[in-house]
């Protein structure tokens, strides 16, 4: 058997995304250091939350002496998008045990989810898919911890002129494009992209979750229409 382990393949699939993770972690580490957090606190936060954007906002709100309830709610709203990932993964973990589900949930990030978009084309067996995901997601966590600690001690040393943080949107774009299977998916992309610009000013990053939800609903609506349309099209083709 010369077949590569799905765990290793998962780790490899995360490699191209790391240039986008590193500067984000460095920014987080630098922000934590500037806010006066010690290594224990940063590591504790990293392990308990493991959510970059929410962590950055939490540190910012802590320094502004905002009330605890507001800090917790704001962070949770920012992370609400992960409920969509969780829903999207539900069929994958249907037969997994509680331990696997717990690990899978804890490790769920934008990046890990993004590397799994072509999972159905990669593997047939559910256990291979799960192993791929766990490899990719775990490696993401390792990189996140290392980059935050580096940022804490050395500051944001990534050269500014290279704008490495631009690798974040680039990697998400590159992983999303193959999922645009037909015109309906393309409309969903356009709808949520345009909406997110107009809803950008909403507080607590609410624009993101609202745009994405409307996007999914539009996709559902358009695809429910489609069955009728394709029937009609096939009739027309038959007629010709």
């Amino acid at each position: 058997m010369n077949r590569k382990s799905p765990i290793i393949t998962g780790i490899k699939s995360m490699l191209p995304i790391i240039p986008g993770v590193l500067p984000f972690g460095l920014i987080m580490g630098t922000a934590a250091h500037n806010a006066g957090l010690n290594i224990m606190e940063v590591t504790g936060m990293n392990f308990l939350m493991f959510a970059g954007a929410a962590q950055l906002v939490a540190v910012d709100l802590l320094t502004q002496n905002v009330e605890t309830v507001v800090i917790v709610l704001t962070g949770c709203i920012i992370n609400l998008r992960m409920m969509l990932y969780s829903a999207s993964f539900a069929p994958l973990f249907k037969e997994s045990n509680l331990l696997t589900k717990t690990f899978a949930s804890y490790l769920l990030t934008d990046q890990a989810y993004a590397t799994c978009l072509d999972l159905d084309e990669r593997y047939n067996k559910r256990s291979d898919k799960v192993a791929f995901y766990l490899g990719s997601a775990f490696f993401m966590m390792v990189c996140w911890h290392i980059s935050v600690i580096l940022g804490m001690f050395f500051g944001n040393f990534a050269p500014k002129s290279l704008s490495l943080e631009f690798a974040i949107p680039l990697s998400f774009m590159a992983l999303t494009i193959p999922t645009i299977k037909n015109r309906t998916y393309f409309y969903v992309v356009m709808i949520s992209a345009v909406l997110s610009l107009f809803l950008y000013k909403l507080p607590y990053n609410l624009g993101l979750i609202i745009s994405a939800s409307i996007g999914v609903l539009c996709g559902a609506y358009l695809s429910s229409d489609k069955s009728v349309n394709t029937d009609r099209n096939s009739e027309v083709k038959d007629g010709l």
Partner: protein
Amino acid sequence: MVFDNFWVSVIFLGIGTFCIRASFIYMSSRLNISKRMREVLSFIPCAIFPALITPMVFFHQGQSHFFLQKERLFALFVASFISYKTKNILITIVCGLLLLFVFSIL
């Protein structure tokens, strides 16, 4: 310790974040996911990633002007064609970063 409410905030944020992540994964065994439901779920990546990256690129560092300094937008636009043609993430990222570098010194 600088902030009195640090650990309380972080622990509750941790619990909240885990519950969000675990929500549907934990329920999955009890859910009956139909073919149609799978189709609807398949729209999630196309809906969330554009909503995540478009403002990031468009309003980079708080520029709320709609037309000025949109080199990131152009770089992403060109890179998306490269991505579509090559289907390679690493090539896309390297080209995108180079494009941005070129656009920003022009």
